[in-house]
C-alpha cells in the first residue's frame, strides 16, 4: 500500500515539515491537520500551523517482527510522541541508545527514509524522532 506513487506525493506535506492546524476557538493543535475541530465543529476556526519539532515520549514499543517493508529494520522503536503543543503523533525513534528510549524522554524531529517496499517504486521519506536529552 505504501509504495504506490500517488499515495506518496498526494498528501505528504505534513510528513516533511509537521504541517498541522490549530483551532483558534478552543486553542487545540491538530496533527495531521483536521478538516473540522471535533469540539467546536462549525464554531471552530482552523488555521494552518507548523508543529513544534520537539516533544516527549508518551508510550513506546520495540518491534521485533516488522510488517512488510520494515522486516530488515528490526528491531526498531515505535513511539507515541506528545509535541510541545500537546498534539500527538506516532513515529519511529531512531539514533538513540536503547536505555534512553523511555516514557517521558525528550525527543526531537529528524528527517529520514521511512520505507522502500517496492524496489522499482518511489522511496518514502518523512519524520522520525530521536532522544535529545
Amino acid at each position: 500500500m505504501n509504495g504506490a506513487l500517488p499515495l506518496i506525493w498526494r498528501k505528504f506535506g505534513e510528513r516533511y515539515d509537521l504541517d498541522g492546524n490549530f483551532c483558534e476557538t478552543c486553542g487545540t493543535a491538530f496533527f495531521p491537520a483536521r478538516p473540522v475541530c471535533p469540539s467546536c465543529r462549525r464554531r471552530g476556526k482552523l488555521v494552518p500551523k507548523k508543529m513544534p519539532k520537539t516533544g516527549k515520549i508518551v508510550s513506546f514499543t520495540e518491534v521485533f517482527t516488522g510488517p512488510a517493508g520494515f522486516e530488515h529494520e528490526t528491531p526498531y522503536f515505535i513511539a507515541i510522541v506528545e509535541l510541545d503543543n500537546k498534539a500527538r503523533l506516532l513515529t519511529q525513534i531512531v539514533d538513540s541508545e536503547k536505555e534512553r528510549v523511555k516514557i517521558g524522554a525528550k525527543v526531537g524531529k529528524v528527517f529520514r527514509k521511512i520505507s522502500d517496499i517496492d524496489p522499482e517504486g518511489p522511496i518514502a521519506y518523512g519524520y522520525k524522532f530521536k532522544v535529545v536529552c
Partner: protein
Amino acid sequence: MRSVSIIGTGCTVFGEHWNKSFRQLIAEAGIEAIQNAGVEGKDIEALYGGNMASGRFIGQEHVGALIADQLGLNPIPATRVEDACASGGVALRSGYMAIKSGEYDVVAVGGIEKMTDVGTDQAAIALGGAGDQETELFHGASFPALYALMARAHMNKFGTTEEQLAAVSVKNHKNAMLNPKAQFHREITVADVMKSSYIASPLKLLDCSPITDGAAAVILCETEKAKEICEQPIEIIASGQASDTLALPGRKNLYETMAARVAAKAAFEKAKLTPKDIDFAEVHDCFTIAEILAIEAIGFCEKGKGGPFTEQGKTALDGEIPVNVSGGLKGKGHPVGATGVAQAVEACIQLQGKAEKRQVKDAKIGLAHNVGGSGATATVHLFKAAEGRK
C-alpha cells in the same frame, strides 16, 4: 417495543482449514444455524454478513451476495458489514436493528474470515487495514505494536505487569481445552508466555491471538414470534456501539478504550442493568492487554485494576465473573469477521445450558464485547434466556 431474540446458532471449528474454502465455511455455519432455528430458508427475510478483508485474503469482494447465494437464500437483500475485527458484532447489531425497526421478523447474521489462504506477511498487511495507513502503518507500526503502545501506557500508569498480561493468555488457553471448536487445545503456563519471543515489547508471541479460519451464524427473530417457534430463544436485551479516532495518537488516553466504555454504558442503560448483573462475558482479547482494557471499560473491575483482577483468578471459569470461557480470541481463535458472531453463539450455548464442561453455573445474563482495530469501533451486546415454546 419490539424485542429481538436468537433462535438458531451455527459455528465451524476454528483453526487452519486447508481443505475448506470461504464459501464452504460460511455455508457450514449458516446451514447449521438455519436448521438449528427450526425455520425454513424461505422464512428468512434479510441477511447481514460480517467480514473484514476477503478482498485481501481471497481476492473476493461482494460477499453479502455470495453468502446469500451459497445458502440458497436469493432473492433476499444481503449486505456485507465491515468494521475491521468488529465486523461480526456490527453485523449482529445490523440484524438486530432491522428487526427492531419493524422492517423484518426473521433475519440471518453471519460472520466469516478465511485467513490462511495467504502467508503470514500478507495476512499482517490485510489486518493492518484496521489501523490508520497514513499515520500508523506507514511508519512501521504493526498491529501488535499498536496494542503494545497501549500495554506499555497501562503498565506505566497502573503498574500492570507482563506476568498479569500472561495470566490472560494462560486462562484463555485453559478454557479453550474445554471447547471442542477451539483452535488450540494446549495448556500453557505464565513461564511459557514469559519466555516466548517478543513481537512488539511488552507483547510476546503468546500474548497475541492467532490467524484463524472460521465462520459463525445466528438466526434472529422478533421475540414474540421466537417464543412460538423456538424452545430456548435467547433475547438480545441491549445493543451498544461506539466509535473512537481511527489512530491511537488522536485519543485522550492510551490506557483506556473509550469506545468500548461508551458502548457498554449504552447497553447497560438500555437494559437497566449494571456490570454486577452479568454472569459471564465474551470479550475481545486479540492481545492479552485487550482483555484487561475490556474488563475495565465494561466495569467488571476498577479502572487500572484489570491486571491483578485477572491474576487473582476472578475472571476464571469458576471466578467472580468468568471471561472468555470459550477460550476467547487467544484460545478459540480469531477469524476476524466471524469473531463477533461467534461470541453471540457462545452466549447462546451458555444461556441454554449446553456448554458442557465449560458451562458457567446459573448463567442468566451474558455479555459480548467486540472491538475493531485498536479500539476505533466497539460493540457490546447483552443476552438473556427468554421463555420459549413448551
